[in-house]
């Protein structure tokens, strides 16, 4: 279940829950002046906490490392296609609003077109 390198520009090491050494894929794009962070779950290549469970803590660690303002970035989680026969390992992208108080509004699924637009920026 190796994740294709097409999903990221670099690997980002972060402190997961309880400081567990963890790793994700990372792309940063600039869309109309707004930095957009895309983190990719690496499954077996991630020795620690998943990107979803790490959530806002991971977003802050990336912003701190890259000199970005946590309050103004867009933040997207990607679960990559791993060519698994199992449908629940399909590719998905979700934009995360950490300020949302309603859990149902915290994650918004993005269409392939929306993602293409961001990646090409």
């Amino acid at each position, binding site marked *: 279940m190796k994740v294709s390198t097409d999903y990221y520009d670099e690997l980002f090491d972060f402190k997961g829950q309880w*400081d567990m050494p963890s790793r994700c894929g990372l792309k940063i794009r600039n869309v109309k002046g707004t930095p957009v962070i895309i983190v990719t779950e690496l499954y077996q290549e991630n020795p620690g906490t998943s990107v979803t*469970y790490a959530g806002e803590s991971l977003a802050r660690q990336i912003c701190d490392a890259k000199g970005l303002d946590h309050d103004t970035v867009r933040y997207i989680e990607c679960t990559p296609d791993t060519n698994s026969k199992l449908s629940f390992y399909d590719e*998905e992208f979700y934009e995360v609003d950490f300020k949302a108080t309603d859990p149902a509004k915290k994650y918004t699924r993005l269409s392939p077109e929306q993602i293409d637009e961001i990646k090409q920026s």
Partner: protein
Amino acid sequence: METIKMKLIYPRWQKLRGQTTFNLPPHGPVAFAATLPEWVDIDFVDENVEDLNFDDPCDIVAISMMLSTQVKRGWAIADEYRRRGIKVIAGGISTMLHAEDTVNHVDSVFLGESEGRMEEVLNDWKEGKLRKIYNYMGQQPPIELVGPCRRDLYKRELYNHKGVQMVDLFHASRGCRFSCYPCAVSYLGGRIFRPRPIDKVVEDMAGIDNNRLFIVDNSLAQNKEWEKELFRAIAPLKKKWISHTIEDDPEILDLAGKAGAWYVYQAVYDTSDYIKERIKRYHDNGIGVEGTILLGLDNQTEDDIKRLIDFLGEIDLDLAEFTVMTPFPHTKGYDDLLRQGRIFDFDWDHYNAGQVVFQPKHMSPERLQELYDYAWKSFYADESQEQKMFRLFCNVALREMQEGTYRPRDRRLANKSFGREVVRNIKK
């Protein structure tokens, strides 16, 4: 060194309705107890088979939890002891899965494996410096440190059903190289398979006063050479054992059968010929099969589930265990369903794998619940779970008689079931 008294508690949980209840001697608490310094005098209470008396004197309390359905009870116990001024430590699988909440109810949370680490924790406590979190996640101790569990702490008569002693739980390895969708084991024990030294496994297994074991390793199908070596080494002990999946390899299945494999838990996830033949290959080697069937995955429609249930009638399973998809924290299942806004119930008492706590993709939660109930009823319609278990029990007893290892049931406990009087419904 002055002896201290530790109350070690395994909290009770609500058993699944409609299913035969068997209380096995829990593994986590006695594995933990083996890592304590010798100056700790342990009073072990398994609340599933005995009452907990908060008035029993003790210096410190340790709560060991395995299931999500134990954590709320564990928190209540911790709250009561702390109200009485006694310090409480918590550890174990579900403590790790629910650590963010557990930390609010105890004086100290222990995360990770405790071998070689408890003396430090207890010395901190003695000096009044107990830390809120002892974090050893991802820092597994050398596997050679894993020693025999403190099975002497069990009150054996409480793990006995009508004179028949329950199996003892045993582990030959830790960690798992797989990271399956609904499973948190790779988070808990790491993604590196860590087999115990074979000589230690044999020594440990030989020392257990029970001929029937449950090897609780997540999957034995981790490394073919290790499996072969393990089975060859334990065969002379003539123990009979249950386990999870064994490698689908003719030589390994043959060795497993000869090493005493009694029955395995084997996932039945589709209606393919492969599954049918897989079950047959176990049976051909004298190994029984309890099918484990997970319902409610996103790739299952109502028709798929009904076909799967019908299929079970064609593959000659000895037992079947049905569960519904449950998004336990630190699994991919949890992450996916959380992002999709499909988890509607976060009451951990309901995370028993028999109650639907999320919105299935192809049906309503109520319909999935109905299908789960239907699966149990349908599979056990002609022969009850207890009757099927009795047949498996007869198989193993016969093999033991042939090998001269059979122990007759304890007649003194014939009218007891897990410490309680058996109520017999004899119609006149």
